[in-house]
């Protein structure tokens, strides 16, 4: 393009002084140029330093499951321990070889645990032998000194990260934590003179230019690790000459201010190594988990070589999609390792033949358990800002028990299918939710938000608020039983037809599930065990509906449902987790413990930040709760819950209650053993009839989940103010002649004639065998 140069200015000003002649324009321009370049360099310098020294990376919060505790006496099948170790990425080996390996033999397992920093300090790696006998841990031996140990815990499973919708993820490493082979190997492959150059490496640039000219295209970059870091850290990805210059300047500046180790550490954490959907995999720490499901320190030589080789092009050499290419690249890296003397040449051929060792399914970045992590996130709200959760690298230690969670998911999914098939229901329409807690301590061990457990959407366990039906009845009966001079388990209730005008003017005639009335002499505990509706409404009206609401609030219900007669039949809505909260208070004998999903939060450097300690308060008199629990055991032994015992051993006492709503829309079950509480809801998202009662739907799933857990029998301590009285359940009166015909009923002391010897001192377990006569009696 022809362009007329503007006439030189000096010719326009011939009469200027000598001084101006001494400052020819090109000098001025050059000076300005130097000044600008200096200013620009100062600006870049500022940028390099402030960005490098500030929070270098935004780190998503890491969410951990509970650590598994191992101690002699623990009920634990060897197979279950092996499953846990596999989840954690421990490798089964022939002989122990470093942390994260185990040897599984008959009746014992040897393992080297990984070190881990818990809230209460560092637990170093340990070499242990765990002996098993009759599905229990019988011995725990520290192989370092051959001493018997009392207790140890494994490192906790990382169950997910909390990070922004589209974002980078990484596991930060200190350079001291990175295996030497990886560092030396990285230099061998990417930047042989890293320790010697000053940020840019003229030799390698010249070599690259030469190679590229010869090839006629860019085949080799001359970038040092420092330049690569600058590129990833500060600059865009485009390949322009100005960007190249900027990169070189910044690389030199970086080297001026920081040591080689600092630069290397930043590189190791920054380097991009893959893409998992919207999540970018950064740094070798995370890449090691993403590709091999184990920490960097446990990688084998060939695995290190693969990661180092992949730096050149993580998607081009993606080992999951480009197996052959990735293998070739790994082998090239291995050859470079040999050339640099990092590994022996003799081993090369054998190493080249090894498989890549990449795990098929990458450990889920977000989480395998989105419903549970959703609960964690909500419980953290108010304590932490969303921005802190996604950027500060917090470590969140939760209460999730991975095995309980997996069993809950599996049983729920499997049995929903079975229910749909066996009952001729349309396939895939039923939905369900489940909550499992630890009873004491109020820890949420598992939470299932729907039958698609990997879907992070509608969380039914927290948000599906449905009428609870008969699940409310324990609150009605507890209200009555806390007036011991008026009500006991054997108080006769009236189950005859009832006609009411509701506060809104509508008539209401409650019906029983079996469409029959059961007369005016139904013992209170039978009415609960058989879940009779009419007698329950009468009882609710008698004690006062507002009193029932008060009971619900004491047990842990946060809202105030309308105090109308239909409340006695559960015509108000609750989410499964809220139901779990109320039933948990019953399961502990009247002690309210807020349900928690988090134990502790630590900073990224493992400094304790906040703790969610055990909190409890007595919410209800223990006497009436004890008596109610006795009746809820009858629900399981002889009432609507008895089919649970087709799945669960009869030696385990259970207490619980079914719930069914109008037109069989919602099917509920809530119940507990001594150590586990479960709430299950089954229904449809469109709220059309599920065609299942509490017993035919939710209970079936509940029992199958519970049957997979290590259950302790429900054996509440009898409070001082309770006395057992032997009664003939047929007569509902004292009969001290024949113990076989009698059964011990709990009463509040001072409200009954106590002059009868109990049949079995201190025992209330003879109720176990009562199923048959109860059935006969109140058919």
């Amino acid at each position, binding site marked *: 393009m022809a362009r007329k140069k503007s006439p030189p200015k000096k010719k326009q000003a011939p009469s200027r002084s000598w001084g101006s002649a001494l400052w020819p324009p090109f000098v001025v321009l050059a000076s300005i140029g130097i000044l600008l370049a200096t200013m620009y360099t100062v600006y870049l310098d500022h940028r390099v330093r402030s960005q490098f020294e500030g929070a270098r990376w935004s780190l998503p919060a890491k969410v951990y499951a509970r650590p598994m505790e191992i101690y002699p006496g623990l009920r634990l099948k060897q197979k279950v321990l092996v499953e846990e170790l596999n989840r954690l990425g421990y490798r089964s080996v022939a002989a122990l070889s470093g942390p994260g390996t185990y040897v599984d033999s008959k009746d014992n397992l040897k393992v080297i645990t990984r070190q881990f920093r818990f809230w*209460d300090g560092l637990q170093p790696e340990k070499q242990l032998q765990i002996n098993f006998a009759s599905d229990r841990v019988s011995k725990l031996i520290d192989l370092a000194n051959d001493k018997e140990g009392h207790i140890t815990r494994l490192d906790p499973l990382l169950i997910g990260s909390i990070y922004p919708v589209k974002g980078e993820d990484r596991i930060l490493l200190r350079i001291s934590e990175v295996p030497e082979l990886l560092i030396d190997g990285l230099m061998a492959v990417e930047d042989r003179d890293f320790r010697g150059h000053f940020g840019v490496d003229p030799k390698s640039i010249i070599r690259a230019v030469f190679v590229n000219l010869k090839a006629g295209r860019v085949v080799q970059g001359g970038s040092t690790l420092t330049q690569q870091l600058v590129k990833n850290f500060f600059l865009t990805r485009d390949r322009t000459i100005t960007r190249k210059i900027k990169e070189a300047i910044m690389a030199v500046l970086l080297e001026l201010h920081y040591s080689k180790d600092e630069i290397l550490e930043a590189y190791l954490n920054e380097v991009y190594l893959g893409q998992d959907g919207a999540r970018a995999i950064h740094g070798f720490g995370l890449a090691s988990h993403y590709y091999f499901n184990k920490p960097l320190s446990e990688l084998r030589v060939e695995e290190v070589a693969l990661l180092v080789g992949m730096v050149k092009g993580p998607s081009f050499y993606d080992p999951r999609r480009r197996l052959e290419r990735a293998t070739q690249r790994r082998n090239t890296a291995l050859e470079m390792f040999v050339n640099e003397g990092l590994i022996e040449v003799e081993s090369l051929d054998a190493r080249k033949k090894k498989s890549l060792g990449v795990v098929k399914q990458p450990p889920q970045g977000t989480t395998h358990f989105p419903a549970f992590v959703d609960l964690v996130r909500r419980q953290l709200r108010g304590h932490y800002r969303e921005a802190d959760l996604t950027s500060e690298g917090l470590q969140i230690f939760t209460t999730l028990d991975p095995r309980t969670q997996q069993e809950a998911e599996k049983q729920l999914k499997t049995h929903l299918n079975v229910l749909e098939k066996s009952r001729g229901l349309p396939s895939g329409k039923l939905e369900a939710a489940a909550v499992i807690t630890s009873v004491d301590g109020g820890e949420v061990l598992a939470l299932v938000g729907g039958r698609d457990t990997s879907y992070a959407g509608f969380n039914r366990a927290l948000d599906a608020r449905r009428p609870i039906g008969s699940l409310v009845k324990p609150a009605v009966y507890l209200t009555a039983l806390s007036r011991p001079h008026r009500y006991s388990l054997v108080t006769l209730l009236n189950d005859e037809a009832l006609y009411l005008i509701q506060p809104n003017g509508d008539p209401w005639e409650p019906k029983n599930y079996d469409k029959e009335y059961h007369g005016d002499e139904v013992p209170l505990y039978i009415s609960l065990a058989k879940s009779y509706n009419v007698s329950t409404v009468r009882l609710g009206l008698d004690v006062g509906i507002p009193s029932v609401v008060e009971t619900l609030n004491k047990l842990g219900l946060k809202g105030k449902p309308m105090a109308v007669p239909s409340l006695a039949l559960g015509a108000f809505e609750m989410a499964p987790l809220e139901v779990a909260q109320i039933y948990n208070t019953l399961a502990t004998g009247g*002690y309210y413990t807020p349900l928690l999903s988090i134990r502790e939060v630590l900073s990224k450097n493992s400094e304790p930040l906040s703790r969610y300690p055990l909190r409890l308060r007595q919410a209800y008199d223990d006497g009436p709760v004890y008596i109610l629990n006795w009746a809820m055991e009858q629900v399981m032994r002889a009432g609507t819950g008895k089919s649970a015992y087709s799945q669960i051993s009869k030696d385990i006492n259970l207490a619980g209650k079914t719930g069914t709503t109008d037109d069989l829309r919602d099917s509920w079950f809530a119940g507990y053993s001594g150590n586990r509480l479960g709430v299950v809801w089954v229904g449809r998202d469109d709220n059309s009839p599920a065609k299942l009662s509490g017993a035919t739907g939710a209970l079936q799933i509940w029992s199958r989940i519970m049957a997979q857990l290590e259950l302790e029998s429900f054996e509440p301590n009898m409070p001082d103010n309770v006395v057992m009285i032997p009664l003939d359940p047929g007569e509902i009166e004292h009969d001290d002649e024949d113990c076989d015909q009698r059964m011990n009923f709990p009463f509040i002391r001072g409200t009954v004639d106590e002059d009868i010897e109990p049949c079995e001192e201190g025992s209330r377990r003879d109720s176990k065998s009562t199923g048959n006569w109860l059935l006969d009696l109140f058919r």
Partner: protein
Amino acid sequence: MIGNILAYTSAACLFMAVGGCAVFQGSISRSPASTQPDATVNERYDSDGELSSGDSASIMKSGPAVQALINQANDHIANEDFQNAAVTLERALRIESKNPELYSRLAGVMLLQGQPDEAESLAKRSNSLSEKRPDLQYKNWTIISRALRSRGENASADAAEMRANQLKRLAGE
């Protein structure tokens, strides 16, 4: 305020192993508070030899894992690290969730941490699980009485203390 701390200490000290308690007592006795009237109460509980024997008898009921954690918790208490003492006792409670001993110890730690409400609740929970354990119930009622007194509920505190003393006699029998 200092009186309260002393009260917490004296009650909570009932629950420590002898060694741990001695260390803790050492640090307390250096404080000027030991000259205050409360000190008599302090001495009364501290010099109780019978109690420590009752204590060790009940410890026998905990499994070895829990016992190991109780020892760890005592070490934390000896180092005045009450937070980690609580963490360790909660860890033990996950193993033996109905062990009244653990609730009682945790109640003691809450008292040391200046959380009388939590201490009272945990002591009551311990009582609800310690049928036929007057030794433990005595400790729990002592804690309850301390907690009540620190809230200024002196009449209830007196009643609780009476109950504690009755149980102490019962435990001695």
